[in-house]
């Protein structure tokens, strides 16, 4: 069953990637990239357990945090850059 979960996650990653390429607007792409990040965390947890990667939990924890910071940074700088919004 764990193999099935891994394969489901890999297919999910591929589909999310297609959305990240297609767009159509930048918010869709931010959403897809963030979603890709969370799916990677899940892949690390499930794959790490199945394949016995060493200390995979630490790395998954780290990924979850980095993904959060990264997505916030994208939105923050995009807002600051956007000429419509006030430069803060």
């Amino acid at each position: 069953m764990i193999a099935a979960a891994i394969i489901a996650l890999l297919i999910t990653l591929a589909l999310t990637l297609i959305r990240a390429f297609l767009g159509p607007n930048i918010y869709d792409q931010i959403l897809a990239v963030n979603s890709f990040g969370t799916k990677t965390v899940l892949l690390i947890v499930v794959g790490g357990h199945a394949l016995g990667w060493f200390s995979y939990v630490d790395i998954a924890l780290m990924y979850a945090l980095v993904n959060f910071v990264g997505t916030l940074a994208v939105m923050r700088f995009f807002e600051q850059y956007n000429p419509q919004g006030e430069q803060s």
Partner: protein
Amino acid sequence: MIENLHLIIDVCLLAFLVLIAFAAMKVTNLFVATMLFGIFSFVTALLFLDLDAVDVAFTEAAVGAGFSTVLMLAALRLSGAVENAKHRHSALGLFIVVLTGAALIYGTSDFPIMGDANAPVQLHLAPEFIALTQEKIDIPNVVTAVLASFRGYDTFGETVVIFSAGVAVLLLLGMGHVEPKNEPEQSTVLWVVVKPFIALILIFGLYVQFHGDFGAGGGFQAGVIFASGIILYSLVFGEGYARKVVPSKILPRLAALGVLIYGVTGLASLLSDKPFLDYNALSSNPIAGQHMGIILVEAGVGLAVFSTVLLIFYSFSGVNHNE
């Protein structure tokens, strides 16, 4: 079955890498290209994990996917995000690239098959390092042992390179000066959620710093994680308030202090007639000396990386803030 899973993950991730790189090449919006580069780093780190390189995966995730993306976004804010699509193709360039690629692929036919235990790389140095780590240093993580002790000179050089990169960015951009002011458009949800997150990130950074001898981690990773906690604070609560928490004046001094801790640890062994960076001299028991040396050196690296990373971030976000 397990070997097949390894293979499936390996092939899928490599395919993702090619797709992402291709998309990053094609898009004209540089914001999107930077985000795609962020997930490129994520996938690379996942691949490292599958290839047994736990420490490298850790570093790539923290540095490549986290800090590098934030930095590029901060630079894009200053330099403009749309690429001029007019001149983007070069027939000569394509020709050179295809030629070089073909030559290199021809060259790979001489490479050993991946995972071959009798390949030339595996026979020299690596077995000695693994055996010596068990015998002389007695910490589980061979990578940390090689990094901090056997190849300590090398790591010292890298730390100095990072320090000088920080100094170069400081000279180019300056630190700027940002007054704290209330952010009008920030949402309360973000404030409430982010506060415990910052504490969590800082604690996790300390854990990575001191757990590096036993599992994945060490000074390089911990420094970046600790800095990203402060970066998160600055992103959500505003640049000026972050500079109240960690003053910008203190950072160059902290970076220098980190390099100094490393250097002084090396000099200490010179005092007792041992070579530079030979930690056996630090204590009467050689193994305890090694442990002490590695902890000190990792602390120096962590401090230097933390303050340099934060320094670079401050430099980028401080530009143009007063206008």
